């Protein structure tokens, strides 16, 4: 009973609150990093160095007027932000945050579920999130949201292919679809898969930028052309849900990158013996640190690179990344067969 219900429930509550708080502070971090890159100070007024700014932001979003356009499809308009947010959050169910720990002498694995199809589960969940964006744009019954939604869904569908193909080459190396097995395979392998599959890592990262609508691929919400893209008509709490989902998705793709390519909860150089003293750091701390380094890369790229044009985006996806990913799979499979003889 305790193993079946109580422990998973406690884990879910911890992960959920952790994700929500991380999202709040990720927004602050983004504003701060942008400010530092642009030689500004960023938010400074609420709390010392603006550390309480997220709380003020959330309060503002709660009390703002929640407007539903008159000509909107009311039910779908309300459902769309929920359809975007729920997949972004349930994807955390299969992410292994750390190795097994023992609490009061009871072994507790630091993941909510270890599905034998964990990686595919993330693909499946991500593909459902697209509906929220399309429906949000459609139900607003207004031209900019519709254009933004069409752009977003075309972009997401295109880059989903490239990202999923990089998963295939990782699966070829690890021999398993389970997220936990992928991490243990890297431990057995001696090096992180980032060194075994550098091309897959590159394609995954570019694809992840596009999948999360991040700069330089933030065309679905290109302010200069589309006002705010698919969520133009949203305000107040419903807008906040879209916002929350976007940042939660960023955390998901960073956590997946950490798990697949950067050894998940493993410490750096997991096979080097004289670094064993690093084992005193709890495994989940390594995971969080690595995830935040990947997240920082997202913020850094946003502050550095200008936006792509739409045709450039499509050309990059279909004519460069997908062929490269397929070639990578063929080479990986050939090397695997050659080594197994």
């Amino acid at each position, binding site marked *: 009973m305790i193993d079946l219900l109580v422990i998973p429930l406690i884990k879910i509550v911890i992960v959920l609150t952790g994700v929500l708080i991380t999202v709040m502070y990720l927004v602050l971090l983004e504003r701060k990093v942008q400010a530092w890159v642009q030689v500004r100070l960023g938010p400074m007024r609420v709390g010392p160095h603006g550390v309480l700014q997220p709380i003020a932001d959330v309060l503002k979003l709660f009390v703002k007027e929640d407007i539903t356009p008159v000509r909107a499809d009311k039910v779908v308009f309300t459902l769309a932000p929920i359809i975007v947010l729920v997949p972004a959050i349930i994807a955390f169910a299969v992410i292994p945050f750390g190795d097994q720990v023992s609490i009061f002498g009871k072994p507790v694995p630091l993941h909510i579920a270890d599905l034998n*199809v964990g990686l595919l589960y993330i693909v499946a969940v991500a593909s*459902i999130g697209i509906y929220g964006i399309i429906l949000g744009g459609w139900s607003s019954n207004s031209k900019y949201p519709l254009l933004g939604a069409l752009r977003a869904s075309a972009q997401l569908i295109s880059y989903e292919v490239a990202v999923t193909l990089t998963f295939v080459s990782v699966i070829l190396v690890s021999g398993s679809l389970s997220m936990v097995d992928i991490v243990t395979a890297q431990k057995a392998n001696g090096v992180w898969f980032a060194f075994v599959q550098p091309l897959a890592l590159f394609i995954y990262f570019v694809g992840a930028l596009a999948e999360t609508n991040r700069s330089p691929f933030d065309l679905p919400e290109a302010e200069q052309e589309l006002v705010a893209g698919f969520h133009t008509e949203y305000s107040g709490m419903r807008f906040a849900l879209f916002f929350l989902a976007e940042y939660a998705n960023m955390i998901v793709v960073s956590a997946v990158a950490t798990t697949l390519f950067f050894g998940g909860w493993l410490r750096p150089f997991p096979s080097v013996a004289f670094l064993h003293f690093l084992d005193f750091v709890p495994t989940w701390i390594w995971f969080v640190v690595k995830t935040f380094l990947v997240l920082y890369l997202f913020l850094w790229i946003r502050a550095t690179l200008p936006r792509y044009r739409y045709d450039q985006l499509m050309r990059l996806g279909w004519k460069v990344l997908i062929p490269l990913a397929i070639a990578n799979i063929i080479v990986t499979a050939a090397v695997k067969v050659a080594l197994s003889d």
Partner: protein
Amino acid sequence: MGQAIAFYTLAACILGFGVLVITAKNTVHSVMFLVVNFLFVAGLYVLLGAQFLAVIQVVVYAGGIVVLYLFVVMLVNLKRPPEAHQDRRRRGRLGVTCSLVVLAELVAIAAYKYVSPAAGLPPALPMGPDNVAQVGMLLYTDYLIPFELASMLLLVAMVGAIVLAKRDL
């Protein structure tokens, strides 16, 4: 017992949303009901222990194909209800024909079961929790030719779509 409750709940939801798909006035709502329907079908696969098929069901049907339906429905203006066919009794006749065919099928199945109760499907394979490898093994050994034929079919469809969309190659 628990499995039976889960099965009948899922089956009732699948049927209910199936009815909603064809009765919804708004085409976009109808497509959304179809997505929910597919998600419940994925639940049915989980109940059978076929997690791989469940996830593939979500990726391919709920997440892939229906998104394209949604595109078509959103871009083609379907606000106007379709005009009624000139022959008013056509619908009734079609309905009666379809239900007679279904009735005949049901009677045939019942009769077949009565005549040879044990014959029919081969016994199900023992499915371990890790059935990804099992599915892959079957696809590349016993079912290799159907698998390759299906992939050829998809390739032909893909080439056809490109030829149709791009007239000057």
